[in-house]
């Protein structure tokens, strides 16, 4: 038995906060074994030093109805997904597709330049590229010999 007790919580918080949504969010299938619709649309994020690529799985929306906004380092994807409403005379056999309004905020690793964001929508995938803000780019500091 050790004379000291070690508090693991700070390490855990560091690890948990390193991932958006927490560590357990990396494994949504294992957590519940089924698709978690509290987050819509699903996104993938890639980043480089100069810009960030976000792809969202968003089939069947009108690109004019989707709002993509960038505020400092928060990218928001919002819109409304419309699925044909069945009429009363129709028999419904399966309803598996989701519909309704959605809004998702993504915190980027650095501030983006709102003038240099591009968004394209193809085959149901929304692809957003946000360039890094000039003021946010790291600057090399010259060391003076004193």
């Amino acid at each position, binding site marked *: 038995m050790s004379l000291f007790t070690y508090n693991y919580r700070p390490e855990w918080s560091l690890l948990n906060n390193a*991932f*958006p949504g927490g560590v357990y969010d990396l494994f*949504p*299938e294992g957590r519940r074994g089924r*698709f978690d619709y509290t*987050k819509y649309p*699903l*996104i*993938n*994020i*890639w*980043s*480089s030093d100069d*810009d*960030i*690529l976000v*792809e969202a*799985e*968003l*089939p*069947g*929306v009108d690109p004019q109805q989707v709002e993509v906004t960038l505020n400092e380092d928060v990218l928001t994807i919002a819109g409304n997904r419309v*699925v*044909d409403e*069945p*009429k009363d*005379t*129709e*028999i*419904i*056999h*399966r*309803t*598996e*597709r*989701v519909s309704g309004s959605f809004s998702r905020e993504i915190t980027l*690793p650095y501030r983006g330049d709102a003038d240099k964001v591009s968004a394209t*929508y193809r*085959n*149901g*995938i929304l*692809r957003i590229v946000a360039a890094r803000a000039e003021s946010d780019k790291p600057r090399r500091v010259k060391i003076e010999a004193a």
Partner: protein
Amino acid sequence: MNIETVKYQNGASSGERIRNQTLQKPNVDIRETEAGIILAADLPGVATEGLNVMLENNVLSIEGHTAPPDAQGRASVYTEFGTNDFRRVFTLSDEVDREKITATLKNGVLQLFLPKVAEAKPRKIAVQSA
């Protein structure tokens, strides 16, 4: 959605199609009207070239292939959805008029209309008073 990982053995000699992708069943909405059946399927990332809708005997199968995303050298930071193929199979009844099935793919959503043969549509029978 169920995710089935399809493992392929080296079946080149037996002519099996080999693809190194996970397989997923797409979400569908199926509604039936007097004219026919309307089927809508979510197939994000599938282009017309990658879509295969086949009818063999009574079996309708929908297959969609997607391509891995082009990250252009950026490192992956966060992943919620993967690249996978879609496949779903339905058995049709004799009511469907196979010659007149229409399919359109727009923004990753496949809309299929399967009209009923004329005999299967409800017909009003005139009643004569005698």
